[in-house]
């Protein structure tokens, strides 16, 4: 028995994040940890990794009770964690980041050469597309995640915690991560694997613990639970893991876009999916549509009226909404309350002659909170304190208040658990029904197949296919990867 957690508790301010955290991991075991966002998974793991301190309950490491005051203490015991959000220094190289805090020295000076060599061999061993000398700040999110993984593998010797390690990775890279996990298991290490992608667990999990609202509601052998049961435990109510959407006949054309050889039309009541591999240009297309990436020769019409695309301001005025992939950085003001975030794109709607009407703003915010079922202590709560799913709802509320006509969703369910995903899809459906046109960029092919009315495929900056709802994942992949 490597790690034993019993009744672990943690509060932030007055809010309990963990009430009853139980978990047991042995050597040579891959233990899945699942739960809705806000259920307490990351909090529990941060306590194990020494990043946070528990308020109550028991933690035993190799049979002895422990309390790690600092990450360094957890490291000293051979515990390492791959974080969900990148914790790398962008101005340092890949090699420097991998060795950060554990540099190898020759006397008083750093041994650059040895660290670079070790980094190179580590990268080669796993076949990652990385260069030991690249600056981390210039890497893609996927590459950064791989650097995080390398860093953790390199130092861990007993227990390795993966927190959403594959959220930015392609299938090929994800398979590489699975290989690593299996190798770690063979070496007799313990692995705790947090993910929303329940399907991945079939490949690697030995056991599973499910958290709900800060409590462990199930813990046991993975093979003895079905996915339906897992979802049920996570959510606590009957939820079909498969969300099915009824298509509507598409209404009038709301957006017409042309740029070089690429043309795109979006209709009211329709959810148009956009699939493609990483680097195909989907996010770039959204950015162009939103005026973030002005392209010469790009022409767009909203409801038949030509619109300039030189700045987000113009796009927003024209009725375009962009719900970004990185909602924390580009979708919300994390240190401002819900109320402020919801009215952020349309302050005129709650202001009279330049002065914001507090009561009107409250009404608006409360209205959206109720309508979208945003789970928060109050509308005064900082957006940064909400879970991923609720943050996404706040972003959508912001655009609803702006009466957007066209919604661009970029990876709408990234980092969101099953229960909240269904709610986000229901929201999108509602938007479509009310006459909006929706473009949904997603790497989750099953989700596209469930939600989109038709699926466009991009490859290397061009639209290469338009597939009907009844298409298959294989067909989408074929166009995305090969072309024809």
């Amino acid at each position: 028995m490597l790690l034993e957690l019993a009744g672990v508790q943690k509060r932030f301010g007055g809010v309990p994040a963990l009430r009853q955290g139980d978990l047991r991991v042995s050597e040579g075991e891959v233990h899945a940890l699942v739960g809705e966002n806000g259920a307490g998974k990351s909090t529990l793991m941060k306590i194990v990794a020494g990043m946070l301190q528990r308020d109550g309950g028991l933690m035993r490491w190799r049979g002895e009770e422990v309390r790690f005051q600092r990450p360094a203490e957890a490291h000293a015991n051979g515990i390492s964690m791959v974080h969900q959000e990148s914790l790398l220094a962008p101005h340092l190289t890949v090699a420097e980041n991998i060795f950060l805090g554990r540099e190898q020295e020759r006397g008083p000076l750093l041994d650059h050469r040895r660290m670079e060599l070790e980094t190179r061999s580590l990268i080669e061993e796993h076949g990652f597309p990385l260069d030991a000398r690249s600056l981390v700040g210039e890497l893609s999110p996927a590459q950064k995640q791989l650097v995080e993984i390398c860093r953790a593998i390199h130092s861990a010797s007993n227990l390795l915690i993966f927190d959403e390690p594959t959220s930015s990775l392609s299938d090929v890279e994800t398979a590489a991560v699975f290989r690593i996990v299996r190798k770690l298991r063979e070496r007799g290490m313990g692995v705790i694997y947090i993910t929303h992608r329940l399907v991945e667990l079939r490949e690697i999990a030995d056991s599973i613990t499910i958290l709900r609202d800060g409590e462990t509601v199930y813990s046991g052998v993975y093979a003895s639970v079905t996915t339906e049961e897992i979802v049920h435990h996570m959510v606590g109510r009957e939820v079909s893991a498969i969300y099915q959407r009824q298509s509507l006949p598409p209404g009038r054309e709301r957006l017409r876009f042309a740029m070089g050889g690429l043309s795109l039309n979006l209709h009211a009541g329709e959810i148009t999916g956009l699939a493609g591999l990483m680097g195909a240009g989907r996010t770039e297309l959204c950015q162009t549509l939103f005026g973030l990436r002005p392209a010469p020769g790009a022409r767009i019409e909203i409801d038949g009226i030509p619109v300039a695309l030189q700045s987000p301001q113009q796009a927003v005025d024209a009725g375009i909404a962009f719900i970004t992939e990185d909602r924390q950085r580009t979708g919300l003001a994390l240190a401002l309350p819900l109320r402020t975030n919801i009215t952020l794109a349309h302050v005129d709607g709650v202001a009279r002659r330049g002065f914001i009407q507090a009561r009107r703003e409250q009404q608006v915010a409360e209205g959206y909170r109720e309508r979208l079922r945003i789970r928060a202590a109050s509308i005064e709560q900082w957006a940064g304190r909400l879970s991923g799913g609720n943050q996404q709802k706040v972003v959508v509320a912001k655009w609803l208040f702006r009466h957007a006509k066209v919604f661009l969703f970029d990876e709408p369910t990234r980092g969101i658990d099953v229960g909240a995903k269904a709610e986000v899809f229901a929201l999108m459906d509602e938007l479509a029904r009310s006459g909006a046109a929706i473009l949904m960029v997603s790497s989750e092919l099953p989700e596209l197949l469930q939600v989109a009315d038709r699926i466009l495929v991009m490859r290397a900056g061009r639209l290469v296919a338009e597939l009907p709802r009844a298409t298959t994942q294989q067909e989408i992949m074929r166009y995305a990867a090969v072309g024809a």
Partner: protein
Amino acid sequence: MLQRLLPFISLIALFVGLSIASPNFLTATNLSSVVRQTATINIMALGMTLVIVSGGIDLSVGAILAFSGTVGTMAIVAGAPVWLGVAVGLLCGLFWGFVNGLLATSLKIPPFIVTLGTLGIVRGVTLILSRGLPVVGLPRSFDVLGEGTLAGVPVVLFVLLACAVVTHLILHSTKLGRYTYAIGSNQEAAVYAGIPVAKYTVAVYAISGMLTGLSGMIEASRLMTGQPTAGQGYELQVIAAVVIGGGSLTGGAGSVVGTLIGAFIMGLLSNGSDLLRINPYVQQALIGAVIIFAVALDEARKRRFSK
């Protein structure tokens, strides 16, 4: 790539341009003069490089310069040998640097505010200790530091080069340097990597303070008095040198070579303006414009960086 070399190219261009524009530029006298005049700012800028790379800033360096020069010369006048007086100056700088670092890390106030406060405190203490009067009566031998030559080359140049080499070594090849970059680049990542951020932050300010103390003694040596009002406005020139050389005020970027280039560019602009008899008011505006230009270019280059 070109943008990274821009400071260096600018320096060369400036050098060549001035050699052509003024017959007095490329003389031993003038060049020695430039070196001596920029030495103080240059050495302080080496320390500031460390501070800025760590993501901090120190507005009190001008005051520390004055304090160190005043107290160091007071020690000499009281009978201490010159070398001991210089050591006292260094220790004064080390002390105030330590104080800055300690205040910033323990009170968790932004360094900008802390050093804004110590700027006033140090200046005040200097005036109190000296009763507002300059320290006079220094032995002739003291001027070797600021005005002496060794084999035809100003002594300060050797001092500057020695400090530059050591600072470069620290930044590039030691744990202290590596952690300084890490803390400036992403403090959270540094914390979670187990780096004792507070300890290294204090060390950085202390070293910078010590280099400032050394500059204080060099300045005093040039003036042959301990001037409690010395160094007014120096902090801005020092920061400008680091920033023109590629240092980023948000941390994680900066280098010794860049800082030296930045300091010399400013020094040459000043020297050239004197030789070409350009109005000193115009000089000020010119330097300000250069700073903005240099940083704007650097920002454009860094735009694709992401955390």
